[in-house]
């Protein structure tokens, strides 16, 4: 077993709004070992992006955060901002969602990558630029010398995604968070990005945030399924996706077009007024009376495999 790199304990993230607190993440426990790829699978509004942003401490100042996020024995929630800034990009990097708006339109791609390198590694500009070209080459951008001098709008969606990946890898971080890197890409481009991640995750830990179940199957050693701000199920990828225990995970798999496209009835609850008991109970086909009264904890259903469901309790 590799050593634990990231250790999240009892993480609660809430956003105060006029209508009440949005509980985006509710008592999340998560451990990621070095060189492990954990896919965080969830639908829009389940709280998966918030978890990634909380780890990097990039949430807005009025956010209510409780719990611990330990990275290499330091609690990221309590270290001074100066230290956190050194951590971002260098130790923990993120590939942000939406490649179209994550790059600065008025600087060349090379300059943007070089900026990160000179900030963290103190390289002079020409050296940083040539390192940027190497990185573009590493993420398979054709003619990297020329492309480094181009602006983001001159790149296609797939190419911009590669630039974001190169940017995240600039300081060779030991932990990479990727937020929906395959979103909006067509099948051929998506496969190329997945292939790239298969190389990247060889020598670092990756938190792969996605709603693309097939991408999770392609990359992950472990999968966590998020529903309404908490983990519904977590375990080895083959177990969670091959023998799903939680009715939500089963429903998600059954709604894939290649698996019969049977939809889960109803819709996800509001994170302000969560249902009593199990949060999935209003949509669950195996619901019993107990499910509507008690909030289930994670129950062990196999080696390293846990599900938040009364069926196993």
């Amino acid at each position, binding site marked *: 077993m590799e050593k634990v790199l990231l250790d999240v304990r009892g993480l609660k993230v809430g956003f105060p709004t006029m209508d009440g607190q949005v509980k985006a993440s509710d008592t999340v426990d998560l451990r990621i070992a070095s060189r492990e790829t954990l896919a965080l699978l969830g*639908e*829009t509004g389940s709280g998966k992006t918030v978890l990634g942003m909380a780890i990097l401490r990039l949430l807005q100042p009025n956010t209510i955060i409780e719990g611990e996020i330990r990275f290499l024995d330091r609690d990221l929630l309590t270290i001074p901002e100066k230290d956190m800034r050194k951590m971002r990009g260098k130790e923990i990097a993120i590939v942000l969602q939406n490649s179209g708006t994550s790059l600065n339109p008025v600087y060349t791609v090379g300059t943007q990558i070089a900026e990160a390198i000179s900030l963290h590694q103190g390289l002079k500009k020409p050296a940083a630029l040539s390192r940027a070209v190497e990185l573009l080459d590493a993420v398979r951008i054709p003619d990297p010398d020329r492309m480094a001098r181009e602006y983001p709008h001159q790149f*296609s*969606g797939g190419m911009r995604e590669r630039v974001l990946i190169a940017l995240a890898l600039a300081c060779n971080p030991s932990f990479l968070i990727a937020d929906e890197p395959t979103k*909006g*890409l*067509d*099948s*051929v*481009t*998506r*496969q190329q990005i*997945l292939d790239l991640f298969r190389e990247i995750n060889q020598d670092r830990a990756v938190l792969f945030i996605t*709603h693309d*179940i*097939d*991408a999770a*199957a*392609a990359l992950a050693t472990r999968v966590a399924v998020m529903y309404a701000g908490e983990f519904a199920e977590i375990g080895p*990828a*083959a177990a969670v*996706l*091959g023998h799903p225990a939680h009715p939500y995970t089963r*429903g*998600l798999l059954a*709604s*894939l*077009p*290649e698996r019969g*496209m*049977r*939809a*889960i009835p109803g*819709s996800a609850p509001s994170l302000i007024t969560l249902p009593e008991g199990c949060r999935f109970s209003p949509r669950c086909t195996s619901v019993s009376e107990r499910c509507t009264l008690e909030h289930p904890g994670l129950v062990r259903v196999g080696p390293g495999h846990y599900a938040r469901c009364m069926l196993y309790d």
Partner: protein
Amino acid sequence: MIEVSDLRTSYSTGFLHRTEIRAVDGVSFEINSGETLGLVGESGCGKTTLGCSILRLVEPTSGQVVVNGTDITALSGRALRQFRSHMQMIFQDSYASLNPRFRIRESIAEPMKIHHMGDQSTIDRRVRELIEEVGLNEEHLNRRPYELSGGQNQRVVLARVLAIRPEFIVADEPTSALDVSVQAQILNLIRDLGQDYHMTCLYISHDLEVVRAMSDRVAVMLKGQIVEIGKTTEIFDHPSHPYTRMLVSASGHHMDEMAAESMR
């Protein structure tokens, strides 16, 4: 029912050096009545331009589109407007497809008013019918698009499309912005309502699994041209064009691979 022959649509770009981009470059195919033809291809291959050209939302440069014996590329003015009541398009972004200032009730009623489909009370009754048909309820009629989720807005778009009982619809990536569980709900709805209303459909998507689930036949597009067309099972089980083979092999198969690996 629909015969497209040698359809071409080009755009010209550039200020000093004008260049012509042939987005649709000599496309011919037919869609039978009640049939769903899937159209696949990667971003930028001309799928959307083809869909828009067929409905004349984009003017084709040359070629013909014959619908039920009428060449619609020759129509203009009133005749074209009248013809449009038989055809509708569903776009990817449901939120952008709806007027943000209209209540859902007004959005669904609008096409019926444009095409003079009865008095206020008939239209009101039909709006209430439609909202139930797409799986929402009357309470949603007084809301506005920003108060609904992406899936709910796409249901509203569907109600609006069905309002004028079109014979032919072009659906351009209607679920690519939705989550899988919501996607399944919307796709099932499109499929069921398509049958109820006996609609002929051109279903555009880059997601091969979705196209496989939705279509009777599939056309594969590459750089403005159709490189292969045939029955859905044929295309997926025995793709003949190298490009189709590549697309099929790049489509989501990691779940199966993983299952095979865990068996070993």
